[in-house]
């Protein structure tokens, strides 16, 4: 990690630490926009901080560590899509989307059919898992066949949003229904082969953002648990003295560190290949491990906290609920495992 990125990461950790694990979106989102965190991966020419994928992953990790309630992953996906698209308003959209405006990108698979009606392109279908979509000016949508990627204004006839109450209090998810929503030609980011590449790139980035969120969350949940075991006394001694509990923490530590190493390795090897099949597979692989580790650590963290972990004021449930949601976002874990095996067997 570069010196500059180290400093950025430390300051992010500090800011989020001050906000606390229970801060809501109205506190977190304006602050991170103001601090310029949306600029992390953009090159200097686009007014960015030039930290690339490693920078984005470092911030996702910190937001995961701090259970940040902000649609950061989704916002970065849209910014990346605009950055990598060739269209007239690229520069002005980059400026808008890294400052005042928010674009929601689906954090799970969507099912949208593209239909041509004369000169018009129409989108119909459903999109699940749009983060904080009520805040968004646009949605970043792609057709089921990956042949079209477009920005779609949120407020228009034929497009309806429905808020879903997730168990994870740090994410507000919406579903969108589209009925013959016309695409504005000026807002088409990519079509045909270019769109396929962009879709793959966006899926890779989404998987990596989830992996990073999981790596940060797992590390924080474990640290919190170890601190609790060191303070809590029963039977006249700190719980941290019991080997049965120490060994469980050691196992969780090994898992967390392994997931982190795997993610860092993937970032360093595949940054330039995210739009290629092997890059997408590597992203899935890193995410598969990280999210399963996070779920395991969060489950154990609650158990190791005992009764206090069942109370709403304690952060245990926040980690657990975010971990369980992370596992279902993006490409669901079971599907990822089958994909990874399938690709491996095909190459044998």
């Amino acid at each position: 990690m570069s010196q500059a990125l180290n400093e950025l990461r430390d300051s992010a950790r500090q800011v989020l630490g001050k906000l606390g694990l229970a801060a809501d979106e109205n506190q977190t989102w304006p602050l991170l926009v103001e601090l310029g965190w949306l600029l992390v991966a953009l090159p200097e020419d686009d007014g960015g901080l030039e930290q690339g994928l490693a920078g984005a992953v470092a911030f996702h990790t910190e937001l995961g560590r701090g259970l940040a309630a902000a649609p950061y992953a989704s916002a970065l996906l849209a910014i990346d899509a605009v950055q990598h698209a060739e269209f007239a308003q690229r520069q002005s959209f980059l400026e808008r989307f890294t400052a005042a405006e928010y674009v929601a990108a689906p954090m799970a698979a969507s099912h949208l059919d593209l239909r041509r009606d004369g000169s018009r392109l129409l989108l119909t279908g459903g999109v699940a898992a749009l983060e904080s979509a009520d805040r968004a000016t646009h949605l970043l949508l792609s057709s089921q066949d990956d042949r079209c990627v477009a920005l779609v204004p949120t407020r228009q006839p034929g497009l309806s949003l429905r808020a879903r109450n997730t168990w994870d209090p740090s994410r507000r998810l919406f579903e969108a229904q589209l009925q013959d929503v016309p695409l504005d030609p000026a807002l088409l980011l990519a079509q045909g082969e270019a769109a396929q590449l962009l879709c793959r790139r966006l899926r890779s980035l989404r998987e990596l953002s989830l992996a990073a969120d999981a790596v940060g969350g797992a590390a924080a949940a474990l640290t919190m648990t170890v601190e609790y075991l060191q303070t809590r006394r029963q039977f006249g001694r700190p719980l941290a003295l019991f080997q049965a509990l120490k060994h469980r923490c050691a196992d969780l530590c090994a898992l967390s560190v392994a997931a982190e190493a795997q993610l860092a390795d993937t970032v360093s090897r595949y940054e330039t290949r995210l739009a290629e099949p092997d890059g997408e597979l590597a992203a899935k692989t890193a995410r598969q491990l990280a999210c399963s580790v996070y779920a395991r650590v969060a489950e154990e963290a609650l158990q190791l906290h005992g009764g206090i972990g069942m109370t709403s004021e304690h952060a245990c449930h926040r980690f657990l609920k975010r971990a369980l949601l992370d596992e279902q976002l993006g490409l669901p874990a079971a599907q990822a495992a089958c994909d990874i095996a399938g690709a491996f067997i095909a190459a044998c």
Partner: protein
Amino acid sequence: MKPDNTADALRMEVRSWLHEHLPRQWRKAMTGCDQEAFVRAQREWFYKLAAAGYATPHWPQGWPGGGRPLAEQKIIYEEVARADAPRLILYFVSLYHAACTILEWGTQEQKQLYLPRILKGEVWCQGFSEPNAGSDLASLKTRAERKGDRYVINGQKTWSTMAQYADRCLLLARSGKSDPPQGGLSYFLLDLRSKGVSVRPIAQITGDDEFAEIFFDDVEIPVENRIGADGEGWAVAQSTLSSERGLTLVELTQRMRYALPRIVATMREQGLIDDGARRRELGELIPKVHAACALADRYLLKRISGEEAPGDASVVKLYYSRVLREFVSLGMRCGGLSAQFQEDFTRGGGQETGNWPVDFMNSYNWSIAGGSDEVQRNIISERLLRMPREPRNWQLSGERS
């Protein structure tokens, strides 16, 4: 990191050397062969590697093959794993444990005497563990009694890999009383042909006998064969145990990655290639295997840059041993009933040979030897997570102290 032409050149050089010199069909030859044939093959492979300088990249400048930085040693190991070359089990203690201990603690005379002989193929074994001193190594009881210009050794060592083929032994024994017990130990370089030494192979659960016990009955060792000062044995032993510096785990994790197709081969043989449950298990294993590689890799890079923290090595070893067990367990499940029948196994072929029951049994080597998983968990929780240490005084109710 800048793109490194020297590193790429070395990688290509090692790769083409291995391509040229690797014994063809060695797996076939080493499957079902007896231990004598295995030892002969190991010697031949050692001589080839040593002549090319690839057996001793970790030795200092001035020795054949020596003076290579850790990053280059890593490349050699990665290529050895990639080429699926035999593991040099017979010489591991000689090349790493013995050589590094002698290089760090030995007198000029000891270096001149022993190191060239290692290059010529002398085999060393390790005499540390005892029947009652495994994880708690410092409690070892083998005595070394000073009598004039010699020590007299009495006691027993165990779990000594390939000791029945060894010429010399790295011996840790108690030469004085001390509290803590680490204080009274001395370290010796023992000629196994000395009078009073007997070596007995241990029959293992695989039917093989890779390990042996060593018995010492009034064995005399000249004082000049002690390494380090009297009572300094524990510190010397720490050098022995850290001598391979993470390279082994780089090699083993890489081998594990390259061995993944053996699971697919078993799935095919058993008609399970389209079995959803097995495919899903494979899909869950692959990320763990990659993570083990990334972890071993990063650990070595940390060592190179001097950023290693206490407990880091334990994380790598614990994670590897758990993933290895999952790997071979999946092999067992894919093998099904056919993995319950005894078949010839491959010697020197690593941990994932595709003979799953044997691989499964051997996987306990990694969760028990070299600090068991439980010891690693203690180290991780105490040093890395900074949880409190076990209290030293304890008493079971009804037991007198």
